[in-house]
């Protein structure tokens, strides 16, 4: 029924039924999710986050130590 609108010039060129071509091409089964290649940024993200944490810790510690030193000198 779905092929009613299809046209062909000779019987040998008549399209095969859709159910047949779908079955042959494996289109009637549940298709696995297509995996696409994506750029892997995990390493640079990891470096950036680690660097930021180190920088933050050093900054905080520096401030704390400097404040303590200042209090002692007073």
């Amino acid at each position, binding site marked *: *029924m*779905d*092929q*009613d609108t299809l046209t062909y010039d000779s*019987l*040998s060129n*008549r399209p*095969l*039924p*859709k*159910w*047949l071509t779908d*079955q*042959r091409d494996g*289109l*009637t*089964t*549940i298709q696995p999710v297509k995996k696409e290649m994506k750029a892997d940024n995990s390493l640079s993200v990891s470096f950036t986050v680690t660097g930021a944490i180190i920088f933050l810790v050093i900054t905080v510690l520096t401030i704390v130590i400097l404040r303590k030193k200042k209090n002692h000198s007073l």
Partner: protein
Amino acid sequence: MKPIYFKILILASIVSLACTTKVSEWVLLNTLPNQYTLIYFYKNSLNEAIVKQNELLGKDITPANIHFKSIERKDIEQPYYGLYYGNRFFSRYNEYKDLRGLTTSPLREKIAAEIMSGKLCVLLYLTTDSKTKDEKGLQVIQEALKSSPFKNIISVAELSRNDKEESHFISLLLNVEDDLKRINEPMLFGVFGRFKALEPLLGKGITEENIKLMIDFLTADCSCLIKDDLPGMDILFTEKWDNPATALVNKILDDNPSLLHH
């Protein structure tokens, strides 16, 4: 185990079973056949005899997948009956007697009985009465079935396209696609479910490979892709399709897991 976990487990089992039901079995158990419409077109008024005749006709065909109604039309010369499938016009019958055997026939009953007995499908071979063409196709069908593990659950029925007794059935089959009437080649219809006929293999398309693909289609797990877009056309028939026998395909697949495919 908490009752809620138990319920989830049962539900998951049912869902997983539903996804592994084979196409042929799923269609037989779950899909209602599409309806035909028979319309009596008349001009001016209906006389009492015609009203009674149409009442009888309506009662007679009601068990089948068909509606009957009458419509008045000003643009017709003679009254007639028109058979429609959805919006598609199939056939015109000028007289009441032409409708005899519209909804049932001996071969349709035989095919329905095969399907209800648990068979996978019936391969209906519509022949042309040209011996050379017909025998070639039949040989291919027999060879294909000989090598199929499902050969014992597939029936083959032969029908000449000039068979007078089955003229309505033949007309319905040749309407599965709109060009089939013009093609004088043998045709192989896969009939399954509640008398659903797949678009046929015809002429040189009747090959062992294509027949194997047809069997693969019917023995595959019924995926949502198939459920949403079922191929084929429902044939007009009176069967109620209640309580079919267990599908025989399941035993073959259970005994031979290597035949399982999705």
